[in-house]
């Protein structure tokens, strides 16, 4: 009697339990369904902003834009994001910070894009990223390096600076600290340094971090001269003469894009490289741009570990795939703007998918942002981690140029290449990079 009862009770309780669970599930999913819309059928509107005209177009903007288009195509072939097709439109980053503010405002307020993936110039980033919170839309900065973009005035500072603004890469700290560490290891007898940097946030901040790091690692080092040509200047002859006269062992430069190409060409013609060595904090694209003319034995930093030969293709298939796919479509090797573009897009996609798995339906910008924070994804260059301050954290690769058989331009000398791990070159969240460097025990 007791056994049958128990079984009946068991069935009753199991049944009730099952019913309860089923009801609960229905109610809870209806509760979610009630507050969250289903995934809309329409396409995702993504705006990609890069330099499509001007000196920065060929080495930076166009490769970056190409990668955005390439990845949009590939993701769409895989079914889009959460089944929604991606509609990517490219916009020109030309015109200066003010024009970009107006463009971003139009994209968000009038065109109502889902996200802006963009910005190469630190000047544009610093002007546009605040619009993310101001106008309530996600902006992922993909290539700019200004560390002050997301750092506060003093250490420690509150972070993240913007709820909806991200940078899907590490900032210029890694480039300049990486260079300083490299110089310490391979050129420990350096006595005098000089700098030629473009006169805006990027140039000013790059030099500052490099100077602080060098002074920390080489106490007593002398700064011969610092030059500040305007961004986009095309005549460096006076500057080159000054550098050649300065007696510097190493000249630091964060010149990039067309400026770096023009400067290097003029410097080659004037004989700068016979007198001194250059350390380009973002030099990776230029050997390919200048071809065989690019001088050997110059220091090149890769803005991360973005280099078509690193990580080695046999060890990291994603890089092999990325290089081959890009080369197939565009007949050139991808340079670091390409890797950065991949990162921004991949981070967005991963964050959307992660947020959707938590809240169901199509997540709001705030939900995507919450998912983007702390995200770690695989990229062709290795792992990318988006930290709590919305900055990426990456390792950095630094090398010396060398002519090697089989390539039409100098590549990085495999015998003198260093990869500095992220914790050595990225300040922790909440601490200003300069303060962090000062705190090192050398």
């Amino acid at each position, binding site marked *: 009697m007791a056994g049958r009862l128990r079984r009946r009770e068991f069935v009753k309780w199991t049944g009730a339990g099952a019913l309860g669970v089923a009801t609960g599930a229905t109610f809870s999913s209806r509760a979610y369904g009630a507050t969250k819309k289903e995934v809309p059928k329409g396409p995702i509107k993504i705006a990609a902003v890069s330099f*499509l*005209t*001007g*000196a920065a*177009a*060929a080495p930076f903007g166009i490769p970056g834009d190409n990668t955005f288009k390439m990845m949009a195509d590939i993701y769409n072939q895989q079914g889009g994001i959460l089944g929604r097709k991606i509609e990517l439109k490219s916009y020109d980053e*030309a015109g200066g910070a003010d024009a970009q503010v107006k463009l971003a405002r139009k994209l968000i307020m009038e065109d109502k894009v889902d996200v802006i993936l963009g910005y190469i110039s630190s000047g544009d980033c610093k002007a546009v990223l605040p619009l993310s919170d101001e106008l309530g839309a996600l902006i992922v900065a993909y290539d700019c390096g200004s560390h002050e973009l997301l750092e506060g005035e003093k250490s420690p500072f509150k972070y993240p600076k913007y709820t909806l603004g991200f940078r899907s890469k590490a900032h210029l700290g890694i480039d300049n600290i990486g260079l300083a560490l490299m110089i310490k290891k391979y050129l420990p007898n350096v006595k005098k340094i000089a700098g030629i940097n473009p006169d805006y946030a990027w140039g000013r901040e790059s030099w500052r971090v490099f100077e602080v790091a060098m002074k920390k690692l080489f106490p007593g080092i002398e700064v011969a*001269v*610092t*030059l*500040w040509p*305007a961004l*986009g200047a*095309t*005549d460096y*002859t*006076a*500057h080159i*003469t*000054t550098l*050649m*006269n300065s007696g510097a062992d190493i000249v630091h430069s964060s010149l990039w894009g*067309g400026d770096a*190409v*023009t400067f290097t*060409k*003029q410097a*080659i*013609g*004037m*004989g700068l490289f*016979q007198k001194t060595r250059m350390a380009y904090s973002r030099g990776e694209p230029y050997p390919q741009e200048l071809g065989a*003319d690019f001088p050997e034995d110059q220091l090149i930093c890769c803005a991360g570990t973005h280099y078509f030969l690193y990580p080695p293709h046999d060890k990291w298939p994603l890089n092999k795939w990325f290089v081959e796919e890009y080369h197939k479509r565009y007949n050139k090797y991808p340079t670091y703007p390409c890797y950065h573009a991949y990162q921004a897009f991949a981070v967005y996609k991963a964050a959307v998918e992660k947020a959707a798995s938590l809240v169901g339906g199509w997540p709001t910008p705030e939900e995507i942002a919450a998912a983007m924070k702390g995200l770690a994804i695989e990229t062709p260059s290795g792992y990318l981690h988006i930290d709590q301050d919305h900055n990426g954290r990456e390792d950095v690769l630094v090398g010396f140029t060398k002519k090697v058989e089989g390539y039409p331009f100098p590549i990085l000398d495999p015998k003198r290449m260093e990869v500095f791990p992220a914790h050595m070159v990225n300040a922790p969240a909440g601490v200003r990079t300069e303060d962090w460097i000062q705190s090192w025990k050398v």
Partner: protein
Amino acid sequence: MVLYILNGLYFGAFLFLTSLGLTIILGVMGILNLAHGSLFALGAFMAAWTIGLLATGPPSTALILAIICSMALTAAVGFLLERSLIKPIIRRPLEYQLLITFGALLLMEDVIKLVWGGEARYASAPFDSMGRANLLGLEYPWYFVFVMALTALAGAAVWVVMARTRAGIMLRAIAMDRDMAEAMGIPIKRLSSLAFMLGASMAGLAGALMVPTSPALLGIGMEPLIMAFIVVVIGGMGSLKGAVVGSLLVGQARSFGVGFLPELEMPILFLIAVLILIGRPQGMFGKG
């Protein structure tokens, strides 16, 4: 030290060519040609394109041809501009004149974009092929020497035209007193076109000479315009001597400025221009 002076001369060469053009137009026609920088850009793009086309041949020939083509093109465009835009408004108030050349600037910038696209155009073969000379123990690119020599030649040619030929003398007469010149039967219309074409071709020459060292880019004409403007202000509107002295001065100021006061190069140049405008608005050699 010598290198700074040489660089100042090199930079001054470009200043001279562009300011010469600007000052001729200003002196003879009383018009501040805001589209002058666009003519410079036109010369640069034309030269870059020509050098690119002739990439298989010897670079020096390519350069000479490029210079000729650029000067011809800019002279032609100058003629077009003068006939279609300047002539109708020559008697109208100043604001219309400035605005119409401003409109021409905007127009030409986009025409350049339409024809040659948005990317930077490099044409460094002539620069690289000339190599470096050994002057007084210093290495200096032969190309820079070439630029300075050619500019001096161009300047001398213009001086000869202005001082010795009938056309030149008539141009100077118009510059001195337009109404009187007209009363004396000088063909103002034809000579105005000539002045504009001469000025434009100088800008084109400057653009062509720039291209082997610096890329032709959209907007490349803006800085030469402003620099030429400063030189004309300092040297005096309508004065050839002023263009020479002014460009020498500004060229040296920039070269030494970059070397010794890198933080202040641009504002100092404008400050000098402003002081001259305040103290002696006609410049060093201009008429009142």
